[in-house]
């Protein structure tokens, strides 16, 4: 692999850091926060909601997967969605960036607002750039590591060609993957280990500077060490974006999330600060699930 002095020098990386905010904040993509409705200001208990789902009913054909879900996702916090398989938590997650629209027969009722803007009225491609997603199985493209990371920048026309290398490095650093891959940027992403591939997918999602990051059981195929690295990463990322994570691993929810929502049979049973959910749940079903009596 040829060395690429253009962006391997520290000076260049420094320049990139300075340059990046200008690219990161695209005014047209970020509506003013001041325009929040009175309804949201009234919610004094939690920090301002980045995403707010109200009265969501979701159907796969005639099967109702979600029943009247209303849930706020606080800005720059990690919210965990837990519950047994088939409880609708992944369905809710997918509807937050409208990935459900790729499924034939899926139908969503209700409203989802981001920064008080109805995402269902939003241009879907712009929405998905703003609300990134990491999937259960790592799914890097059959391309080089560099191409994987720069993909989002290119398809969204977000960066000039000469800026891309710096932004790729920045994203890989954010995902704590840079040191492991900097010498093989132009090799296939499939040469990486499972945990590295998943962090690559996180880096790829971060490259387009999302405001929200959705993670659908991102560690379910990883060993505990790789899992720990990703959890560590999530802690570092929450300064930059709002994170929603679906997990089957209740210890994971307890470790990473500030708020936890418990779902059962397509209904939101309980939503509160993680501490409260895990120590003094108000609902019997939550308690049974948390303590391992079922599920």
């Amino acid at each position: 692999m040829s060395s690429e002095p253009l962006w391997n020098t520290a000076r260049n990386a420094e320049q990139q850091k300075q340059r990046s905010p200008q690219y990161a904040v695209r005014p047209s993509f970020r509506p003013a926060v001041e325009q929040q409705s009175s309804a949201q200001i009234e919610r004094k208990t939690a920090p301002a909601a980045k995403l707010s789902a109200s009265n969501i009913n979701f159907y796969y054909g005639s099967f109702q997967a979600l029943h009247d879900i209303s849930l706020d996702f606080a800005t720059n916090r990690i919210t965990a969605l837990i519950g047994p398989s088939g409880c609708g938590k992944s369905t809710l997650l997918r509807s937050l960036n409208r990935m459900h629209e790729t499924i034939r027969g899926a139908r969503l009722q209700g409203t989802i607002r981001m920064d008080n803007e109805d995402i269902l009225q939003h241009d879907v491609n712009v929405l998905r750039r703003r609300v990134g997603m990491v999937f259960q199985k790592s799914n890097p493209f059959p391309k080089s590591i560099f191409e994987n990371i720069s993909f989002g920048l290119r398809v969204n026309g977000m960066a000039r060609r000469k800026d891309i290398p710096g932004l790729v490095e920045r994203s890989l650093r954010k995902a704590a993957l840079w040191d492991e891959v900097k010498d093989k940027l132009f090799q296939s992403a499939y040469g990486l280990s499972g945990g590295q591939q998943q962090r690559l997918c996180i880096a790829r999602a971060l490259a387009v500077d999302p405001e929200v990051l959705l993670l659908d059981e991102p560690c379910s195929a990883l060993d505990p060490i790789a899992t720990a690295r990703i959890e560590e990463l999530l802690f570092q990322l929450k300064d930059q974006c709002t994170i929603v994570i679906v997990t089957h691993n209740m210890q994971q929810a307890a470790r990473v999330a500030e708020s936890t929502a418990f779902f059962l049979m397509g209904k939101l049973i309980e939503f509160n600060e993680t501490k409260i959910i895990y120590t003094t749940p108000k609902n019997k079903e939550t308690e049974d699930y948390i303590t391992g009596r079922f599920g």
Partner: protein
Amino acid sequence: MNVKKIVNFIMFGLTGLCTLLTVGILFFILAYMAWRGASSLSWSFFTQLPAPVGETGGGMANAIVGSGKVLLLATIIGIPIGFLGGVYLNEYAGPTMSFVIRYATDLLNGVPSIVIGIVVWGLVVHPMGHYSAFAGGIALGIMMIPISVRSTEEFLHAVPSSLREAAVALGASKWKAIVTVVIPAAMRGIITGTMLDFARVAGETAPLLFTALGNSFWSSGYNQPTATLPAMIFTYAISAYDDWHRQAWAAGFVLLALVLTINIVARLVVSRGIEMPRGNA
């Protein structure tokens, strides 16, 4: 030995024998064509025009070039249509639509090639008033379409949907995801399919007999009757001259070698495999 065991043994032998026969036929054809064809083959076959009746020697240089021209046209006409149709079929069409398309494509594939020839004759040759390489290219191009549609679909289908999800989740439009991720991931297979498609129609004779027709001299451009190897084999094989028969054998051997080479190369391309993400293969 009881009856069960005897029946078992006989059936084992019978099925094995038939398999041997199947493989054997291929090698028999290869060997026979090599024996009859190679002995009639000479350098002049590739460089000279057909000799006039009564003279010995000569070659089929014009038919080799003509085949190339007709196949090039066929590829230019058939592959883009088949490829994009395959993309639509796999990426856009709903369940009902894809059933209809698949069915229609298979029916088109089953249309006898001579019927396609006569249709092109009626629509192109007759109005133009003369045979041409152009008409031959259209006829073979039509024959390439259904195979191209199905092979494109097959290889796009093998691309895991998780890659499509990854692309659209990054803000790519559906078309952008298809162009930048899905098609490149399937590219090797699609190229293989195209090569096999090419090899498949390279030996087609019937549609060429009354579209490109053939002649025994150089044809310039695409607007004149043009000699092709398969049509030449047909014409020479049914003639009454021994020397022409030898030429037909040589032409058959060249055509077979060409088609086999393309097949082998195409399979080498695909045997390198489509890369799949770990755990998704």
